[in-house]
């Protein structure tokens, strides 16, 4: 392991330790913590791996990960096509992807929905909640199926989340219900112009 990787691993471990310490501090009400975080995907991302360390990847894993993000073949037998492209067998592709899914590297392979493309609307919102209200606020916000992402951030406005809904009325209702229930300042920051959306983790 070279120095750069060692530093990265250390950062990752530090980050995990910091998160653990934070988790422990917040865990006075464990049940609430459990409810507050939409744990399924997040927990998946952590399972079957050494704590705090990134998943170990071989050459085929890397090729797979890079390919299936942006160039997944939409066809009857996509894994066969992928195998042909990276020079391996379909069985190996499937077993590798299954392992990567178990390790939380691949969350799912499916359609990434364009909310506005199907007539819906979305926004980025933030709330400013006291530190001792974070778990409650997360639970209040996460209970809406329309909330797709939610992050605790190091700012006065400390909880940032995205909401997608079929109509502006529904979106406004969700935000007003959240604001009423939490009784805190809320920012509603709908997209004025999208310059880029290209999530691609090259490994």
């Amino acid at each position: 392991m070279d120095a750069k990787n060692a530093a990265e691993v250390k950062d990752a471990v530090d980050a995990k330790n910091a998160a653990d310490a934070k988790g422990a501090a917040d865990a006075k009400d464990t049940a609430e913590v459990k409810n507050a975080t939409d744990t399924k995907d997040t927990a998946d991302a952590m399972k079957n791996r050494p704590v705090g360390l990134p998943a170990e990847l071989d050459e085929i894993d890397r090729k797979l990960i890079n390919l299936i993000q942006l160039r997944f073949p939409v066809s009857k037998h996509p894994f066969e096509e992928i195998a042909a492209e990276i020079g391996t067998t379909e069985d190996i592709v499937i077993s590798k992807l299954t392992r990567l899914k178990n390790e939380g590297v691949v969350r799912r392979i499916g359609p990434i929905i364009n909310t506005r493309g199907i007539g819906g609307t979305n926004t980025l919102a933030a709330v400013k909640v006291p530190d001792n209200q974070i778990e409650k606020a997360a639970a209040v916000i996460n209970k809406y199926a329309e909330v797709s992402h939610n992050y605790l951030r190091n700012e006065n406005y400390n909880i940032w989340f995205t909401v997608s809904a079929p109509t502006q009325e529904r979106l406004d209702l969700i935000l007003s219900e959240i604001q009423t229930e939490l009784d805190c300042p809320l920012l509603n920051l709908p997209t004025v112009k999208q310059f880029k959306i290209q999530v691609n983790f090259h490994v």
Partner: protein
Amino acid sequence: MSENPENEKTNEITNEKRYSVDEADEKLIRLIQDGIEFTHSPFEKCAEELGISEDEVVARLKALIEGKKIRRFGASIGHLALGFTANGMGVWDIPPDKVEETGKKMASFDEVSHCYERPPTPDWPYNMYTMIHCRSQEECKAVAERISKTIGITNYQLVFSERELKKKGVRI
């Protein structure tokens, strides 16, 4: 597969006011939006369920992508599992007449996954947002500094995520 986890409520309004996709497409999306199985014929079950052929399923998916109703079909990656543990939201105060050219420059950075113009508010004066994913906060900061130099604007903050409270992707 389309059922929400127990802790989420699906409001009646959502059920009444659907997105504007036709019924067959909506059914199709609901069947696969939580992810396809890793098998030789991942669309077989879905085709059976819909009473159409696998070729038709594939054709419908391609049409949905073509029509920009689906942004793409592919993998959602658990960036934490790959070691991309630093997630910095850059918030920038850009003069309104510079937004267009600045946005294009910001978008050209590989490390920037999302770049949006959003309305400034009295309490939060920023009008441009860049999501930066890196393996460390230091790397994120270095990227933000490079962006700042490139666009000639220093009025920004990099707001790091401390904890992922939910990440799910959009579902209908």
